[in-house]
């Protein structure tokens, strides 16, 4: 295994997935790379293919075309090194919380961190006594609320001490307090162990500020990829008199008479009579989703790694 592969948590090349032969593909020609150690938000509208991409990465389904490399190898070979939490948080309903954690321990005998799992499920070992949201070890999974089941599912993921966490909509069922706590736990895990974390969501707001990598899915592929700061810096929101925008990449433009509002990727210096502003992340994402024809963009950093590779090989 070459060194650059170790530095890449997820890499897709021409990835495609079609569930039924007659239906259209869910993923089509999807290519991207996610460097290791990032906290990555995988965002996109409903049905964009986020869950399919994560299922492929978890080795639960096979791609119809292309390849997906997980931690430098196939999803099946990497099985012991990643954790996956499915959107529906499936857990055996007949088990108790404690038995579910035991199940995690039994199925991950080689690398089970009991303390980490119990910290997520039962809360930190504080002398303060009962905490809100913490679970009773003897309660049955069947009796838990959606948010409580998410907590158990995440506890299994933490107990595995993975190098990569694939979390499909983990925040959806959580109340704001639990969301903060578990997001904090995820960030702590990433900071302490260098874990790569992929969190899918259709609400970017709940991840803004927490992630240092962004993958925007739309139309079955990755539309935007990279550091959110850099992605934002590459775009300008401008207002001004309607004028030819040749030379710039226009993501979205709206004409209101002689007045023009546009989100562009500047290709050169902008005239002075245009008012420019930095777009918000939400504006950036929405503009791309509204305009499927806008060209895909990956930040330089991702490419740089690539060029280094080329140099190293030469």
């Amino acid at each position: 295994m070459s060194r650059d592969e170790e530095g890449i948590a997820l890499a897709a090349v021409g990835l495609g997935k079609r569930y039924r032969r007659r239906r259209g593909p869910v993923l089509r020609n999807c290519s991207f790379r996610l460097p290791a150690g990032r906290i990555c938000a995988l965002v996109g509208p409903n049905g964009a293919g986020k869950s399919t991409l994560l299922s492929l990465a978890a080795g639960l389904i096979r791609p119809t075309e292309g390849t997906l490399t997980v931690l430098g190898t196939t999803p099946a070979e990497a099985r012991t090194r990643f954790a996956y939490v499915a959107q529906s948080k499936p857990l055996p309903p007949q088990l108790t919380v404690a038995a579910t954690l035991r199940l995690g321990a039994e199925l991950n005998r080689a690398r089970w961190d009991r303390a980490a799992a119990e910290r997520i499920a039962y809360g930190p070992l504080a002398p303060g006594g009962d905490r809100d949201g913490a679970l009773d070890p003897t309660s049955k999974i069947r009796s838990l609320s959606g948010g409580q089941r998410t907590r158990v599912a995440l506890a299994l993921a933490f107990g595995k001490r993975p190098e990569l966490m694939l979390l499909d909509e983990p925040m959806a069922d959580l109340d704001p307090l639990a969301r903060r706590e578990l997001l904090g736990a995820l960030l702590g895990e990433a900071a302490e162990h260098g874990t790569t974390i992929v969190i899918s969501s259709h609400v970017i707001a709940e991840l803004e500020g927490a992630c240092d990598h962004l993958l925007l899915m739309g139309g079955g592929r990755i539309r935007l990829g990279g550091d959110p700061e850099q992605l934002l810096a590459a775009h300008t929101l401008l207002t001004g008199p309607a004028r030819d925008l040749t030379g710039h990449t226009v993501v979205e433009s709206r004409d209101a008479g002689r007045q023009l509002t546009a989100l562009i990727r500047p290709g050169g210096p902008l005239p002075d009579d245009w008012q420019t502003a930095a777009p918000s992340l939400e504006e950036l994402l929405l503009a791309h989703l509204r305009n499927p024809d806008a060209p895909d963009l990956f930040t330089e950093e991702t490419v740089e790694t690539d060029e280094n590779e080329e140099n190293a090989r030469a």
Partner: protein
Amino acid sequence: MTTLPTSPLTSPREDHSLSLRGSRGLVWSVLRLHRAALWIWLLLLAAVSATMLWAYGPGFDAAAADLRQQCRDSVVACHFPSGPWYGKYDTAVALSTLVVAYLPFLVAVWAGAALIGRELETGTAHLAWTQSVSPARWLAAKLAVPALLITAGTAVLIPLHRLMWNGGEELLWADWYDQDAFHANGTVALAYALCGLAVGALAGLLLGRALPALGVAFAAMLAITYLGNDYRPSMWRTVTVTGAKALNLPDDSLRLDQGVITTEGTRIGNNLACTDALDGAADLRRCMARGGLSDIWATYHPRSHFWPLQLAETGIVLAVAALAVIAAFVLLNRRVATASAAASVPPDRRTAAVGAAV
């Protein structure tokens, strides 16, 4: 890096010690997840075993004593056994035969619905596959643990049933080739139960939902059992006798066909001509001469064919089970990512992975 060519069913990465350690966890997980089924199985074993032991010992004795008494009182009772004790004994035997004979159906619907179908439907199977357990090993454990328990259970049930059956022959008036008795009295009981497990698991994997898998597993077992009953006589070579012997087959024979051979040498099956010539060889000769027949014949299985027939059917049914197991593994491996899939991306294609740059 290279990918070793591997068989789809095994992963080269798991060295032996690791896979043993992992297996213990898997076995625990199968037993824990299906604890209710395990209890029901143990309770069923205990109840049916107790019933059969009762029928073999006290039940039979009480019924026999009661009948002897009745027979002394009235001649009619000697030929038409009845009475409370006989009723109880008969019910106990019939029920336990029913349970042992139709156990495969119970196993099949359980395997289809609860063991596999529900786990795929709710996604708890996927939960296991994303722990440190490959789907193939998950399925192997899901099949091996119940298979062992089923084997152990039927290893108790079959001898007990034989004990009860052989001990009660003078009261039961049943034949060794009766379908239910044949299913409960020998190794075919185990074979069909294991086949039920395999077929149920395959149905569960194929459909991925509990209720449809239950239905399909039941229907498949119905078909297999029907075919087994239908083709049972041809699973071992039959005995054919001619002449007077055809009229007096040994006791407890399963008569399959009988017919005549005309003077022209034509063999006619399913023909009862001259079977009423019971007075002896001379009577038979007269009858054949009258009808223009040169001989009569009968085809049958003697009682001594019980074990050959049992073993032949056991082998065939186990082969069907093996096919179902293979199909289940192939199906599973085609669906999920396996270790044999391409592991790395060619370097020249890797650069193409990244789209437009800023």
